[in-house]
C-alpha cells in the first residue's frame, strides 16, 4: 500500500493511511479489481456523460418527458424507488437504539449506509431532473409551506445530514478520533429519533405529493391514504432490502449471516405485508371496486402484477415458520418485495396518469439517456457500498 505520510504530511497522511487500511475486512475477502467492478465503473462513466449532456443541452435533448408526462423515470424510479429502498435504516436504527433490540445491532451500520446511498441517489437524480439544477437549493431559502415538495426537499437535506451523522462513527473509529466518537455516541439517540421522524414523514410525503391530483391518477392508485400506503410499503421494502443485502453480502463477502436476525425481519415483512395488502384491497373495494381491475385493461394488469409480485407471493412464502429460517426462501421473497414496491412506484409515477395523458395523444417511454443515468445511479450505490464494506467496519461482530 502507498504510504501517504510521504506525500501529504504526517497528520493528513496518517489519517489517509488509516482510512485505506482494510485489514479488518480481510475475512470478508472483498476484491476490488473484478470484472463486475469495472462494469459498474463503466456504467457510472456513461451516466456521468449523460449528466453533462443533460446540463448542457437541456431536458428535451436527453429525456422523453413532455408537457403531459412532466415526471418520468428519474422521479419514479430513482427518487420514489431510491427513497423507499432506504427505509431499512430508520427501522433498524429505531429498533436498535430506541427499542434496544440489540440483536439487530450487527446489521445497523450496513442498513444505515445503504440508506445513505439510496438518498444520495435520489438527491443526485432529482438535481438532474429539475430544469434549473444549479438553483435546486432555492426551496431551502424560499419557504413555501403549502407545498409537499418543499417538505420533501427540506427532509432530504436534513435526513442526508442525519444519515451522515449516524454513519460517522465508522469513519471516526477508523481514524481513531475518540473524542468525536464520544460526542456522536452521546447524540446518537437524538439523531436516531430525528431520523425516525424524518423518515416517517419523508416516506409518506412522497405519496402525499400525489394527493393533489385526484383527477389525473387512476383510481386504482389514487386514494386519500396515499401517504400511508407509501409509508407502509416502504417499511415492507426496507425490511426486505436489509434481508436481501445481508444474505447477499453473506454470500459474496464470506460473512456469516445471522439467521435469527433474518427470521425477525421476515416476520416483519409478513406482518407489514398483510397490513398493506388489506389496505390495498380495502381501498379498491371502497373506491373503484374490483371491476376496475378488469375494466382498467393494462392498468388493471399492472395493479395485479404489483400486488402479486410484491405482496401476495412473498407474504405467502414467508408465512410458514420453517420458511422463515430458509435462506433461499427469504432471499427470493425479499427480491420479490423489492421488485413489487419498485413497480408500485413506477405505477404511481408513470403508468397511473397514462389514461389522463394518453387522452391528449401524449406518450412516454424513457429515452436511452434516462435509462443510462438510472443504471449509473444503481451502479454508484452498489460500488459505494462495496467500497465502504472494504474500508469501513461495516459488520461489527456482535459481542457475545
Amino acid at each position, binding site marked *: 500500500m502507498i504510504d501517504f505520510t510521504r506525500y501529504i504530511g504526517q497528520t493528513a497522511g496518517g489519517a489517509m493511511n488509516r482510512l485505506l487500511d482494510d485489514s479488518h475486512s480481510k475475512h470478508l475477502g472483498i476484491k476490488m479489481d473484478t470484472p463486475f467492478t469495472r462494469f459498474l465503473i463503466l456504467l457510472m462513466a456513461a451516466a456521468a456523460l449523460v449528466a453533462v449532456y443533460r*446540463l*448542457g*443541452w*437541456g*431536458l*428535451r*435533448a436527453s429525456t422523453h418527458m413532455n*408537457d*403531459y408526462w*412532466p*415526471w418520468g423515470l428519474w422521479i419514479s424510479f430513482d427518487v420514489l424507488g431510491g427513497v423507499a429502498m432506504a427505509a431499512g435504516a430508520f427501522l433498524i436504527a*429505531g429498533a436498535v*437504539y*430506541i*427499542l*434496544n*433490540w*440489540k*440483536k439487530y445491532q450487527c446489521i445497523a451500520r450496513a442498513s444505515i449506509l445503504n440508506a445513505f446511498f439510496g438518498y444520495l441517489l435520489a438527491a443526485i437524480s*432529482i438535481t438532474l*431532473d*429539475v*430544469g*434549473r*439544477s*444549479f*438553483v*435546486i437549493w*432555492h*426551496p431551502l*431559502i*424560499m*419557504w*413555501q*409551506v*403549502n*407545498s*409537499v*415538495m418543499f*417538505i*420533501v426537499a427540506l427532509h432530504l437535506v436534513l435526513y442526508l445530514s442525519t444519515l451522515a451523522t449516524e454513519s460517522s462513527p465508522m469513519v471516526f473509529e477508523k481514524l481513531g478520533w475518540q473524542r468525536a466518537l464520544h460526542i456522536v455516541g452521546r447524540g446518537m*439517540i437524538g439523531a*436516531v*429519533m430525528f431520523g*425516525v*421522524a424524518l423518515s*416517517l*414523514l419523508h416516506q409518506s*410525503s412522497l405519496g*402525499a*405529493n400525489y*394527493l*393533489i*391530483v*385526484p*383527477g*389525473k391518477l387512476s383510481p386504482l392508485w389514487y386514494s386519500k391514504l396515499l401517504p400511508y400506503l407509501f409509508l407502509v410499503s416502504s417499511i415492507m421494502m426496507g425490511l426486505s432490502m436489509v434481508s436481501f443485502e445481508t444474505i447477499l453480502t453473506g454470500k459474496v463477502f464470506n460473512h456469516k449471516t445471522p439467521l435469527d436476525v433474518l427470521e425477525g425481519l421476515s416476520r416483519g415483512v409478513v406482518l407489514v405485508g398483510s397490513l398493506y395488502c388489506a389496505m390495498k384491497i380495502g381501498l379498491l373495494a371502497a373506491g373503484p371496486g374490483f371491476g376496475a381491475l378488469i375494466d382498467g385493461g393494462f392498468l388493471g394488469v399492472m395493479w395485479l402484477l404489483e400486488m402479486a409480485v410484491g405482496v401476495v407471493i412473498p407474504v405467502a412464502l414467508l408465512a410458514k415458520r420453517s420458511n422463515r429460517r430458509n435462506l433461499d426462501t427469504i432471499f427470493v421473497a425479499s427480491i420479490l418485495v423489492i421488485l413489487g414496491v419498485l413497480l408500485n412506484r413506477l405505477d404511481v409515477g408513470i403508468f397511473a396518469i397514462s389514461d389522463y395523458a394518453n*387522452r*391528449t395523444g401524449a406518450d412516454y417511454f424513457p429515452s436511452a439517456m434516462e435509462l443510462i443515468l438510472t443504471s449509473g445511479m444503481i451502479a454508484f450505490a452498489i460500488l459505494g457500498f462495496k467500497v465502504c464494506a472494504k474500508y469501513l467496519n461495516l459488520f461489527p461482530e456482535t459481542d*457475545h
Partner: protein
Amino acid sequence: MIRVRRSAMSISRRQFLKGVAGSGLVLAAGVSSTEARMSKKLPPEAVGLLYDATLCIGCKSCMVNCKIYNSVPGGALYKEGVASGVTDSLRCSKTEQTEKMASPPYETDGIEGNEGVWDAAEDLSGKTLSIIKAYRNGSGERKDTPVNGHAFFKQQCLHCITPACVSVCPAGAFVKDPHNGVVYYEAYRCIGCRYCQIACPFNIPRYEWDSVWPEVRKCQLCHHRFKEGKYSACAEFCPTGATIFGKVVELREEAKRRFNLKPGSRYDYPIRTLGAKEVNTRTVAPYADRIYGLNEAGGTQNLMLSGISFDLLGFSKKIPDSALPDLTWAYIAKIPWVFLAVFVGGTGIHAITGRLDKNRKEKGGGHD
C-alpha cells in the same frame, strides 16, 4: 414595480417556523390549519375573462395578439436571455428588463417552407399561452351542435381561486395576487421541478423543454398591462365579444344571465369588456351543460360558456368541485405532531426498554 405583499403566505410561513424549525414541539398547536391554508375566497378586486364559445368564429385574433402583447418586458412570454435568467436565479432577485423581444415566439415546427411567418400552434406550449381549438363531428355543418356540427373552444389558464399550482410550488414561484387574483409566475424563483404541471387539474402550465434555463409558461391575464390601464389582449382584440374582460362577480352574473336566455331570442353581447357600449347583437344559441369555472377545482376566475358539452370538447370530467390544496394541507398540518410523537414516545420507550435490557443483562449474563 411595486411588489405585492404575500400576506397569506407569510403568515403560514411564520406559523410553520414556529411549529417545526424551533423543533418546537410545544408550539405544534401553533400551526393552525385554518390560518395557514390558502385562501378560498375570491379576492376583492378579482378580474377574469368570460369566453362564450357560441360567439367565437375561430379567427384566432386572440391567440396572435396574446403572443404580441406578451413579448414585451413584464409579459408572460418575455425572456431576455439565458445569461440574465441564470444570474437572476442565482441572485434570487429580478432585474428590470427593458428590451422588447425581436419577434413573438411563433411555433413554426413541422411546416415546410414556413420561415416563421405563420404561427402553427397545435397546443398550449412554452410559446403559446392561449389557444383556439376546433370541435368537428360528422359533416360539421351546423355550428354549436354536437352531431354533424362544429364549434370552437379556448384553452388557457383559468386563474383558479385556490390554485393548485401555487400551493405545490416548493419555491413560491407561482403567486396569486391577493388583490386582483391573477396567478402569475416569478421565473427567478423557479427550480424547474414541474410539480405545477402535475398539480394543475386543467393541465395548463407548459415547460420550455428545449431551453437550458427553462421557464414555466402560462397565461398571466396580461397583468403587466393593468397598470397602464389596459386589460387582457385576447379580450381587447376579439372582434365578436366571444372573449370579454371584467370583474369576476359581474362576469358570473353575466354568464348566468346568458345561460338562462331563451334560445332564438336576441341579445346584446358586449364586446371587449363587460359593460362596454359596443355590442354584438345576435340570436342566442342554446347553451349546453354548465358554466365552466363556477365550481371546477373550487371555482376559477375565468369562466366559459359553450353550445357543446365540455366533456365532448375534451375537458377532463374528473376535476373535483373543491379546492385541491386542501387535500395536501390536511397532510402537512400533521407534520409537527409526528415530531412530537416520535420524540416524546421515543424517549419514553428508550428509557423503558433500556432499563429492561439492563435488568436482563444483570440477571442473564448479557446474552440477548
